[in-house]
């Protein structure tokens, strides 16, 4: 028996629901969080109970509050990283693809080389060289992911560039900037939307990973990856909650953006085939 669940709309819907909830959570963190993110209590490493639904960590801080604030940090870094690398990647990709030829080759070769290198390690290297801290981490992730955006935008623009109406535009003497801004970019917009959303997924995962490895926002600011790393120390004494819950939060956030991005992808495909 086949269950005809339309894949696209459902994925998109779930994605939207999750992302909207997270935005809500992040925006109203101060009101939703039961405790401060750095409020020390005397209850060290208590398992989940009524007062602390997710337990407390080794310093007596409420984990639920920490992950709510931590979500804000992660989403913040993700947004910053995607904003920077998205802008640069799209612009450079567009220029490179539009002009083609030697310029394109000159830019593509280094981009491809960096692309084939593990992005996390690139980000790690850059973050290390810049020194730690939130903005540096975001910058590091941004730089490491520029080639991804570059590649996708470049291929999109290559395909759009060959369309006949562009040739017609050129024939009537339209300027280059006009063509790029008024025709080519809008044609890519839907794909770019899903690209950026999926980029958020990668950026947040990367930020958490770097936090886990000890690069990034220094304590005591809550950061999901760093908290998970801290929480690992308590594992052997049987405390699972300091490591499981931060990771769960990362998972939910990333899942939301993942589904949103993939849902958008499906939407783009559907629109293309039904036109």
């Amino acid at each position, binding site marked *: 028996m086949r269950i005809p669940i339309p894949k696209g709309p459902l994925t998109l819907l779930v994605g939207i629901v999750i992302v909207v909830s997270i935005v809500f959570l992040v925006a109203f963190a101060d009101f939703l969080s039961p405790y401060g993110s750095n409020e020390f209590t005397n209850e060290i490493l208590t398992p989940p109970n009524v007062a602390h639904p997710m337990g407390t960590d080794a310093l007596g801080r409420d984990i639920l509050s920490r992950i709510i604030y931590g979500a804000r940090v992660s989403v913040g870094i993700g947004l910053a990283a995607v904003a920077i690398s998205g802008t640069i990647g799209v612009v450079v990709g567009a220029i490179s693809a539009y002009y083609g030829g030697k310029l394109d080759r000159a830019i593509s070769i280094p981009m491809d080389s960096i692309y084939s290198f593990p992005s996390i390690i690139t980000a790690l*290297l850059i973050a290390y060289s810049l020194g730690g801290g939130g903005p540096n981490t975001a910058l590091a992730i941004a730089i490491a992911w520029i080639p991804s955006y570059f590649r996708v935008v470049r291929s999109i623009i290559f395909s759009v560039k060959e369309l006949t109406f562009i040739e017609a535009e050129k024939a009537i003497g339209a300027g280059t900037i006009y063509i790029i801004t008024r025709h080519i970019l809008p044609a890519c917009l839907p794909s770019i939307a899903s690209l950026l959303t999926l980029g958020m997924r990668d950026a947040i995962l990367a930020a958490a990973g770097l936090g886990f490895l000890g690069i990034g926002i220094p304590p005591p600011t809550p950061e999901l990856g760093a908290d998970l790393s801290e929480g690992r120390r308590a594992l052997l004494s049987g405390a699972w909650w300091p490591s499981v819950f931060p990771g769960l939060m990362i998972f939910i956030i990333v899942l939301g953006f993942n589904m949103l991005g993939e849902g958008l992808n499906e939407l783009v495909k559907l629109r293309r085939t039904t036109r």
Partner: protein
Amino acid sequence: MVLIVVTMVFIVMRLLPGDPVRVMLGPDAPDETIEALRHNLGLDQPILTQFFFYLRELVSGNWGRSLIQGRSVIQEITYRFPLTLELTLLSMGIGTLTGVFVGTIAATNQGKALDHLIRLGSFAGYSMPIFWVGVLFQLVFGLSLGLLPISGAVDYYAEPTRVTGLLILDSLLTLNGKAFLNTVSHMIMPSMVLGIYIMVPVARIMRGEMIKVLDEDYILTARAKGLPERVVMYKHAFRNAVLPVITVAGLHFSGLLGGAVLTETVFSLPGMGRLLASSVMLRDFPMVQGCVLFFALLVGAANTLVDMTYRFVDPRIKY
């Protein structure tokens, strides 16, 4: 490509704002110490001279000395690298095999509940941070159920004689059954965790390809010939669908290396990934540089290998 990454590493590590020497020694270090270390590392020379020395040292095999206990960088790396290689190969293998299997099942059950479940699972799998999955595995299989050891590559009492450095292989080569069981039990979880990262895209591609291939005319012909379904599946459908899987697996190899860094940290495996992670934490400049460069070489080698494999598997490709 390697050359570009090598240059990039140089640029990043020496030209970016932020003083690596100061970072290494901490904010309280006296100026003479800082200058001495800077001179020691050759960082006080003009940039082009530095670049020249950098390239020369790389090629000649002198990768410097670690700031921690003065160990030779290249020695440390070559000692630890085989374990990372082992982890990577195991994960690649497990991930690809499971991915192909899962993808095929999804394709043959297209549209049914199992297919949707599998697709949901792949979304979930790709969204899970590796280090979290690792911790979950440790909790469930290691601590709660007590089935598998949660850290290290082998227990000291069961260590095989080191032949290649790939511990499981070494235990096989030296016919050491106890070591074999021990190393395998240590490596199961990390490989599975890292394998998920490969399994998801492989399953997705496999599913797509199988669906496409099963629609082809030659499948219809094979069935019309009266061939048993199993033969149709394996001899025709599967073989043709598998090709893009190799490309995908190869593409994700570099991501696998990145994941290895995290996985090795979670499971305390003494491989190169964890070496990089701890060097970064300890601000060990030469070691960080060495590790990243070695990764670059690895990725370059892997890409070449994938190209060659692809040419080998699909004889239609001629160069």
